[in-house]
C-alpha cells in the first residue's frame, strides 16, 4: 500500500514538470510575449522593454525556465495584473470556497447517483429504470451553466427560496478562522452564519453536482447489471447465501469498483464546472476568479491557477487511486 502511494507520487513529478514546461512555453506564446503576462494587454512598449530586461526575458529559454521554476518552488507564482496581489495569495484566499462547493456537489452526485443507479439496475426494464435512464441522459446533456441559470431563475428569482449570489449575505458579520464558511460558523458557534453560508451553497452545488450525478447513476446501473450476471453471483446463490448478503457483499461491492474510478474522474468535471457555476452565481471561488482572469486576460493568474489546480487535481486523483485499493484487494498486492 505504502509502495503504491510512493510509486504514484513518483509518477506525479514528471507529469507536473511537463505541465510546468508547457505553461512556461504557453506564456511565451502569448501575442505580446511574457511581458504582457505581467503587465496586461495595455502595457506601453517602454514598460515592456523594462520588464523584459528586469526579468531576463531576453535570456535563453532554458535558463529562463529554471529561474521561473525556482521561483515557483519558493511559492512565487507572480502577481495578478488585475488586483496587484500575489497569485498564490489570491488562490489560497478563494480555494476554501471552491472546496466547500465541490464537496457538496460531490455529495449530491454520489449520494443520489449510486442509489438511483442501483435501484434502476435492480428494476431493469421497468418504469423506474426508464425514468432513471431518461433523467440521467438529460443530466449529461444539459450544459452546467444553463442548468445554473434555470436553478437561479426558478429558486432564487421566482420563488426566492435561496439567495442568488455570493457566499454569505453581506449583512452577515462573521469571523472566518478557516475560510470554510460553513465550518467557521460551527467553530465560532455562530449557527446563523453557518446556515446562511449553507443556503448560498445549495443552488450552485446542485448545478455543479447534476452532471456527475447523472454519470455516476449511469455507471452504477451498468455496473450492477453487469455484475448480476457474473459467475460468482450465481455461485453465491448456489451455496445458499442470503438475499441481503448476495446483494450487499457480492453484487454491490463488486459493482462499486468501476463506480469508484468514475467518481475519481468526476473531480476534473467538478473543477471545470466550478468555473461556470461560480460565474453564474457570483460565487467568490477559484473558478469565478479564473473566469474573471479570462475576461481580463490576466495571464499570470491563468498560468498560476492552472498549475495549482493541476497539482490539486493530481493529488485528489492519487487519493482516489489509493482508496480504490481499499475496495479492491487485487490492487493492494500489485
Amino acid at each position, binding site marked *: 500500500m505504502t509502495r503504491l502511494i510512493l*510509486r*504514484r507520487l*513518483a*509518477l506525479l513529478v*514528471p507529469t507536473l514538470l511537463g505541465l510546468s514546461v508547457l505553461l512556461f512555453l504557453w506564456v511565451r506564446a502569448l501575442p505580446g510575449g511574457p511581458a504582457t503576462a505581467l503587465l496586461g494587454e495595455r502595457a506601453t512598449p517602454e514598460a515592456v522593454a523594462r520588464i523584459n530586461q528586469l526579468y531576463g526575458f531576453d535570456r535563453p529559454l532554458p535558463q529562463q525556465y529554471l529561474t521561473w521554476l525556482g521561483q515557483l518552488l519558493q511559492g512565487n507564482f507572480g502577481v495578478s495584473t488585475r488586483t496587484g496581489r500575489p497569485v498564490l495569495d489570491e488562490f489560497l484566499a478563494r480555494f476554501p470556497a471552491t472546496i466547500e462547493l465541490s464537496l457538496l456537489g460531490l455529495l449530491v452526485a454520489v449520494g443520489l447517483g449510486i442509489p438511483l443507479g442501483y435501484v434502476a439496475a435492480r428494476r431493469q426494464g421497468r418504469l423506474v429504470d426508464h425514468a432513471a435512464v431518461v433523467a440521467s441522459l438529460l443530466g449529461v446533456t444539459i450544459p452546467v451553466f444553463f442548468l445554473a441559470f434555470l436553478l437561479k431563475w426558478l429558486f432564487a428569482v421566482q420563488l426566492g427560496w435561496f439567495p442568488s449570489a455570493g457566499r454569505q449575505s453581506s449583512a452577515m458579520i462573521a469571523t472566518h478562522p478557516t475560510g470554510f464558511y460553513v465550518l467557521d460558523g460551527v467553530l465560532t458557534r455562530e449557527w446563523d452564519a453557518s446556515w446562511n453560508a449553507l443556503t448560498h451553497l445549495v443552488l450552485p452545488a446542485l448545478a455543479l453536482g447534476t452532471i456527475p450525478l447523472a454519470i455516476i447513476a449511469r455507471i452504477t446501473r451498468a455496473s450492477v447489471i453487469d455484475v448480476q450476471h*457474473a*459467475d*460468482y453471483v*450465481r*455461485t*453465491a*446463490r*448456489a*451455496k*445458499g*447465501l*442470503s*438475499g441481503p*448478503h448476495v446483494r450487499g*457483499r*457480492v453484487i454491490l*461491492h*463488486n459493482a462499486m*469498483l468501476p463506480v469508484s474510478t468514475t467518481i475519481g474522474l468526476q473531480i476534473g468535471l467538478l473543477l471545470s464546472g466550478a468555473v461556470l457555476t461560480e460565474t453564474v452565481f457570483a460565487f467568490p471561488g477559484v473558478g469565478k476568479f479564473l473566469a474573471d482572469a479570462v475576461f481580463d486576460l490576466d495571464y499570470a493568474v491563468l498560468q498560476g491557477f492552472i498549475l495549482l489546480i493541476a497539482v490539486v487535481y493530481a493529488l485528489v486523483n492519487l487519493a482516489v487511486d489509493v482508496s480504490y485499493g481499499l*475496495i*479492491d*484487494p*487485487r490492487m493492494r*498486492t*500489485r
Partner: protein
Amino acid sequence: MTDAPQHPAGGTEPLLSIRDLEVTFRTEAGSATAVRGVSFDVRAGQTVAVVGESGSGKSTTAAAVIGLLAGNGSVTAGQILFEGEDLVALGPEAMHRLRGSRIGMVPQDPMSNLNPVRRVGAQVDETLEDNGVARGAAARARTVELLTEAGLPDAERRAQQYPHEFSGGMRQRALIAMGLAARPRLLIADEPTSALDVTVQRTILDGLTDLTDRLGVAVLLITHDLGLAAERADRVVVMYRGEVVEEGDARTILTAPRHEYTRRLLAAAPSLASRRIELARHGGHVDEPAPADVPPDGSPEHRGTAPASASPALAADASAPPLVEVEHVTKVFTIRGRGLLGRSSGFTAVDDVSFVVPRGRTLAVVGESGSGKSTVARMMLALLAPTSGTIRFDGTDVTQPDRSAEVAFRRRVQPIFQDPYASLDPLFTVYRTVEEPLRVHGIGDRAQRHARVRELLDQVALPAGLLRRYPAELSGGQRQRVAIARALALEPDLVVCDEAVSALDVIVQSQILHLLADLQERLGLTYLFISHDLAVVRQIADEVCVMQEGRIVERGTVDDVFDTPRTTYTRTLLDAIPGRDLDLGRPA
C-alpha cells in the same frame, strides 16, 4: 447432517428424480427449448454423470435442478423430485432455503466463481452462517477444517487470503469446501475440473471422490469428457441436443453403446488406447477401425482419402536432412517493474530447448500451462525472437532474417491457432480470408486466385456456398477449416498447429484431426503440433517432446514415450488422463 455413508444404488427411493423435464429460453427470436423430455434418477450416495457436447443441455439440466436458470429460462414441463418434493413447484423462498444446505454446487471455472473482493475464508464462513450451520468463531474454526478437508494445505493462513492469491487448483478446492460446507445430500459438479491442467484435475477429482464417498453425498457430475465419466460415475446419462439418448451403467454404456450418437462420441474420443491415425502411408497397416471415423451424418469428411490416391510427397526419406532444426533455444521475457523505480526481472519461458522436425512427419510438443510450449510455437513462426540459440528452417537460420528472406520463410511456414473465434478477422469474408495470402504474395490473377480459393475450400471440405459468409456466421468447426484453408493457401512445407483442436467438441475435434492427417498425407506437410492433450497427440504425432517449466524433459517416438515413459513427469501426465486405460468404444 447425516454423515452415514449409504451404498450406491442401495436406497429404495431415488434422492433425485427428474421426470420429463423441459426447459425453455425466451429470446429475441422467440422461445427455444434447450432441454426436452429428460428423465433420470440419482440415488443417495450415487454418482451420475451427464455427458454431452456443448449445447447438449447438460448444464441447463443441472441449473434447473438447483433453481438457477438464467433469467430468461424456465421449466416449462415435467418434475424435479428431490427427496420426494417437486422442486419445480417450490417457491423462490423455499428453493433458496434448499440451496447450499440440501443441494450444493461446484461450478466450472474456478477463476470466475469466487467473489474477488472477499477473503476466501470469509466466503466459507458466510456459507456456514447463512445455512445455519455455525456462526462467529465456531464458523471460522469450521472453515479451516473444511478447507483442510478439501485438500487445501496450510488452510488457516490461506483462509485469510483473497482469491487472486490462489492458483486455479486451490480455488477449486475452496469452491468444493463451500459446496460441501453445509453437508448437502446432493452435490452438482458442473465440469468441475475442465479449466485445470490434467495433473491438477486428477488430484482435485480424487479429493472430491474421496470426500463425497466418505460423506455419502450423491454427485450429479456434468462433463464433456467420456473418459472422466467412465472413471468417476456409477451411471452415465448421454445427452444430445437437449434430449437423453442413452442411459445406463457406466461400464456398459462405454463398452457396449446402443445409441448411434454414443457410438460416434466414443469413436471420436481420443484416448491413450487410440493409435496414430494411419491413412495410406503404410498400406495394410491401418489399425484404426475406419468406419468409426466416418461421421454418421454423412458429411463428406474424407473425400479423397481413398487409399489408392497417389500421394505426392512421400514421407520421411530417412536420409533427407530434417526440415526444422532447433538448437539450444532460450527465451527470456523481461517483466518490466512497475513505475519509475520498479526493477525489471527476467522470466525464462523456454530454457535451452533443442529438437528436429523430420520432413513429412509430425512432431508434437506437449506440456501443461506455463510449460513454454506456446512460446516455442511463436518462435517457430518467427513471431517472437529467441533470446539465444538458433532455429534453422530447411538449412537457413530464421532468427535474423532480412525482409525478403522473411517473406520467403512465411510462405513456407503457416500457423493454425487454438481459438477458432479469434483466429479469423471478423470483418473479412471467408473468401477474403483465404484469398489474402495469395494476393499478398502476388500469386495468380483474380480469376486464378478465385479458382484456387474454391479448390482450397474443397480440400478442407467446406461448401463453396460459404465463400461470402463472415466468421460470425460459421460454426467452430467450420471456422477451424477456414483457418486451415488459409494456412494451406501458400502451399507451405511446415504447419504449426498451436492447440489447433483444443477448443473443439470431441466429434468435430476428431474430424479436424483426420482432416489434418489426410492433408499431411496428400500434400506432404510437416507438422509441429503443440498440445496439452496427450490423447490427441497420440493420434496425430510421430514423435513427441514433453515440456515442463520451459525444458524438454523427455522425447522420443510416440509409442516409446507413451508405452514406456522414462521420466516421472511424463508418467504423471499419462496417469492423469481420465479413462486412460479404458478401451473406449471397443468391446472389452
